């Protein structure tokens, strides 16, 4: 029987799933994904996590709990660094995530707590994978090969995103056999920025991407800007932020402000998010300094309703259309 690896469909899943999936499947494991976020998962998460945690962390707890009893292991990545930028890591909650889950009272299957640390390059990054592979009793060469293929899958995935495919569409295309729809270019283009797990979790963001499309707006996200282009924006800030996803967001904001002019910027942020308090203000100030691109920030939490977000989006779109006509 194949070993069943449970992967919570939350947090870094949206950014790195292809890498993880390929790695485990190459090693002959079966992947069990938790369902898309729903009310039940939210309730589970709210119950399990500490009250002061941000909503994405609560959701993560919910996803983990929903895998209980269904898998042999739960994959719990500890993201330290995914590139070689020396001063950049992840939100402290990512750094302590496996420990937070391990401290829960519930009976969980064994956790595969894996350190992703690519700060010193691929060789160092391999270490975490090797540990996991060894734990699952595979040989060095098998692990090495699975690792190579995993990196390749990730590369292909990011290439796809850079072609303006959304995360949800890309994952559906790669793993559910769905066709890629032809991108429609509406006359209005908005940058929809935020952490992948805030923007692309359709439950949390009340499907903001498709809501915008229905209003005749082309949404452009942070993951659609290639890492090379993002890197070029870095020197416009006095100092890099310390968190990978936050850098992605602020650099994408600068890119959409300066290089590819968009008609508006929407920042999707989870209520109570620490890093976003800084990111949100930075985007606001950068947009203001350039003077021409309207900006709103949409904060989502467990009580956000579709209707509320929709009203705000509509008002924002109307305002921009009106400005255009003048």
């Amino acid at each position, binding site marked *: 029987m194949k070993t069943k690896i449970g992967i919570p469909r939350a947090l870094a899943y949206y950014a790195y799933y292809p890498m993880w999936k390929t790695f485990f499947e190459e090693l002959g494991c079966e992947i069990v994904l938790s369902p898309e976020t729903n009310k039940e998962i939210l309730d589970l998460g709210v119950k399990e996590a500490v009250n002061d945690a941000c909503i994405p962390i609560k959701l993560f707890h919910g996803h983990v709990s929903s895998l209980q009893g269904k898998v042999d292991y739960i994959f719990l990545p*500890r993201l330290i660094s995914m590139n070689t930028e020396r001063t950049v890591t992840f939100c*402290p909650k990512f*750094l302590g995530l496996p420990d937070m889950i391990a401290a829960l009272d519930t009976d969980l299957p064994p956790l595969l707590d894996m350190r992703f640390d690519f700060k010193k390059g691929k060789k160092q990054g391999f270490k975490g994978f090797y540990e996991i592979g060894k734990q699952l009793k595979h040989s060095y060469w098998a692990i090495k090969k699975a690792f190579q293929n995993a990196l390749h899958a990730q590369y292909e995935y990011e290439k796809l995103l850079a072609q303006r495919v959304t995360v949800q569409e890309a994952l559906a295309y790669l793993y559910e056999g769905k066709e890629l729809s032809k991108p429609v270019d509406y006359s209005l283009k908005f940058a929809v920025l935020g952490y992948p797990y805030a923007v692309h979790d359709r439950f949390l963001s009340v499907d903001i991407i498709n809501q915008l499309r229905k209003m005749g707006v082309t949404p452009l996200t942070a993951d659609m800007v290639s890492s090379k282009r993002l890197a070029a924006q870095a020197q416009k800030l*006095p100092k890099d932020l*310390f968190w990978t996803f936050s850098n992605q967001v602020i650099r994408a904001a600068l890119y959409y402000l300066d290089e590819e002019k968009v008609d508006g910027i929407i920042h999707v942020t989870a209520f109570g998010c620490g890093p976003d*308090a800084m990111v949100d*203000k930075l985007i606001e*100030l950068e947009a203001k300094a350039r003077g021409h691109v309207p900006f709103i920030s949409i904060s989502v939490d467990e009580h956000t309703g579709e209707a509320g977000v929709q009203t705000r989006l509509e008002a924002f779109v109307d305002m921009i259309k009106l400005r255009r006509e003048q």
Partner: protein
Amino acid sequence: MYVGFPHMGNAHIGIRGLFKALGILTIDLPPVNRLTVELGAKYSPECSCLPFKTVLGNYIQALEKGADCLIMLGGCGPCRFGYFGNLQEKILRDLGYDFKMIILEPLDWRQTLRQLQETFSPVSWKQLIYASRLAWGKTVAADTIESFSHFYRARQSRPGIITGIYQRGLEKIDKAYDLASLRTIVKEVEGEMKAAVLPFEPEIKIALIGDIYTLIEPYVNYQTDLKLGEKGVQVERSIYSSRWLKENFIPWEKKKKRRKMLRDAKGYLKNMVGGHGLDTIANAVRYSREGFDGIIQILPMTCMPEIVAESILPRVAEDYQIPIMSLAVDEHSSDTGLQTRLEAFIDLIAQRKKDKKDYFLSKVHEAS
């Protein structure tokens, strides 16, 4: 040029001492107060942490009083602290203030010196060493008498007497101008405190852990240490400015501390999580082992490292059978709410101790 800098508990005494000895003019602010927090909260992002808001509030107060240079420490994450200065500078400029911002990155001595040299008239090495030693002496002295106050307040003969001695001691330290007199002041304060206590052992010992700023700045922690002390509880606090400076500005101290923290937190937290998250867990374990009766974690709302710790603390509490309470504070917290929670916590501990004693006594009875 007039320098403005943020307050944090008694840290301003050392900072002011440093600048004064270097011949640099500073803006003297009153202790952090309601206005500070209100101003800061008004112009800060809603979800930033209370330290961010308070520091920004202090800067606005300083600028309004005529500061034209602001000084802040930097940092390298992953908590938000290291970016405070950079963002606050942008916010303040957006508000229309004009000033020079100096952000000193810890462990980057050469750049620190250059920045200071550029801004202020060149100081000699001799002057710098003298000033640093004096500032360091003041910081240590202030911290020492503060820790005395935690110890003696629980034993005081009449309410408020220790706080009075402590406050007078701080004023003297602020005015002192050489190391020898600092030593005398500390000795005197200790003597006065010793004379003002009754000879009994406090029943309850509580350790305070958590984020450094909230622990050290009395206004934002609603004077938790004082409140506990006045109730006859002996308090120990996990961090002081002087220790923090040592652990952040001296590379080997930093390494040593990190190793120790990872060792103490073993089995609970395997990784640094920025701020004082790891320390909070390590300290909780250490205090539990040392036989404290209870632990209180003080954290600012939305503080990432402390929320990680908060999630793990229940495990420590269970393993060591020790009550641990987490208090999250922001600008909307209320003094009375906090007072009630502290009292309930003390009652809980007292009850537990009584139960344990009764149980023990009944066993003794049975045996005899």
